[in-house]
């Protein structure tokens, strides 16, 4: 806990993130180049053919989409229970990134679905719950921007994020139940051959580093923005 609060001070956070940022940014770029190169150089899958490359872009995006929501929920808990001052900013900064990963997962899923299932969209359990996740992200961001008083918006958004965190597993379960009601899953289990592991984990690393970089930049921007606003208010008064 103490460790977390040391960086609750925006000044400390700015210093630490400023030092770390170049490394994560360069790391993300290198991992992305290596990951994309590996993704396009793997041998085609015996069933999926060339489209297996989409897998390396699609699955890490989906993983990050869920991971980001967990990060938002944890930040919200920190903010509501311990009044950690920076976690509101962090939660708000993460939301558009999570929505972007969710949208990327959905779009690449649709592009993959066309050659695999013959259609861009099937009401598959996983696709459907991801679509709902996207709307949950939209609602969360809309609530943030709708409430003018920033302190109130932060607490309202935190409550919503936690309600969503309780509800998302239920939604996931209910969508799975709904999908098995009439037809078996159309997605066969994807047992990966060993050659597919290196590009997959490289891409996962690239996505994580990219997220860390963008998240820090967004938090830093929010802090600087608030400082500028305070300065302007001070000058006006």
């Amino acid at each position, binding site marked *: 806990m103490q460790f977390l609060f040391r960086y609750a001070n925006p000044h400390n956070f700015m210093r630490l993130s400023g030092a770390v940022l170049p490394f994560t940014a360069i790391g993300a770029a290198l991992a992305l180049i290596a990951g994309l190169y590996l993704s396009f150089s793997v041998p085609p899958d015996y069933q999926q053919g060339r489209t297996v490359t989409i897998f390396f872009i699609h699955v890490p995006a989906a993983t990050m989409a869920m991971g980001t929501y967990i990060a938002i929920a944890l930040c919200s808990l920190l903010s509501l229970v311990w009044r950690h001052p920076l976690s509101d900013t962090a939660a708000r900064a993460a939301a558009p990134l999570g929505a972007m990963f969710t949208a990327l997962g959905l779009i690449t899923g649709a592009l993959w679905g066309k050659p695999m299932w013959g259609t861009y969209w099937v009401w598959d359990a996983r696709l459907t719950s991801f679509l*709902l*996740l996207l*709307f*949950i992200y*939209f*609602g969360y961001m*809309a*609530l943030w921007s*709708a*409430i003018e008083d920033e302190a*109130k918006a932060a*607490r*309202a958004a935190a*409550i*919503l994020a*936690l*309600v*969503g965190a*309780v*509800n998302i597993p*239920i*939604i996931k*379960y*209910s*969508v799975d*139940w*709904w999908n098995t*009601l*009439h037809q078996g899953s159309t997605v066969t289990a994807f047992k990966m051959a060993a050659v597919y592991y290196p590009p997959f984990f490289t891409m996962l690393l690239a996505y994580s580093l990219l997220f860390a970089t963008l998240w820090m930049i967004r938090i830093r921007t929010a802090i600087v923005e608030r400082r500028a606003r305070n300065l302007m208010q001070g000058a006006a008064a």
Partner: protein
Amino acid sequence: MNPFGTLLLRDLKLAARSGGGAALALSFFALVATLVPLGVGADLKLLARVAGGILWVAAVLSALLSLDRLFQGDFEDGSLEVIALSPLALEMTALAKIMAHWLSTGLPLTLLSPVLALLFNLDVAPTVTLFLSLLIGTPAVSAVGAIGASLTLSLKRGGLILPLIILPLLAPAVIFGAGAVRLVLDGMGSGSALGLLAAFSFGAVLLSPFAAAASVRLNLGG
């Protein structure tokens, strides 16, 4: 009279006397159900097939109509602060408002549903299941809706953002509620779906007063 009952009765009277809350939701419910055959065609087989889903979605949307006023009216005229000062815990206040909302919208919608099911050519057995599923599931709509209503109570245009917040969270209710009807149409038992729906509904009614009270508190506290 105990404060919980007083508040419940007051909210019910307010719902009945100001703008006919239940009648409005019921007309909306019936209107959506009337527009659907105009959109998808008058094929009675098809209508019976989609009736459960359509009526469930229509019921959720109808219940939404009056949700944004759940706390807002009391917040604007200051009575919410007085209620918050009363010995009644804010969680119980939220529960009373959820119950009042359900009694003035969810329950009337449920009672009307067999009539609309008739228009959709639904047999007796699936109609009974639809009725039961709405009876079990609509409290969850009021309960989850109360969270959204309390989060948006200080917003002038909260009515626009409220559906965006709560509709994704209500997906399980629609899935289990309409799923129960489909199971019966396919000649299977609806017990599993109704059981899961009841679990979701109980959970929602039990937990959402806490979330709603927390956000009412933050809006009053400043």
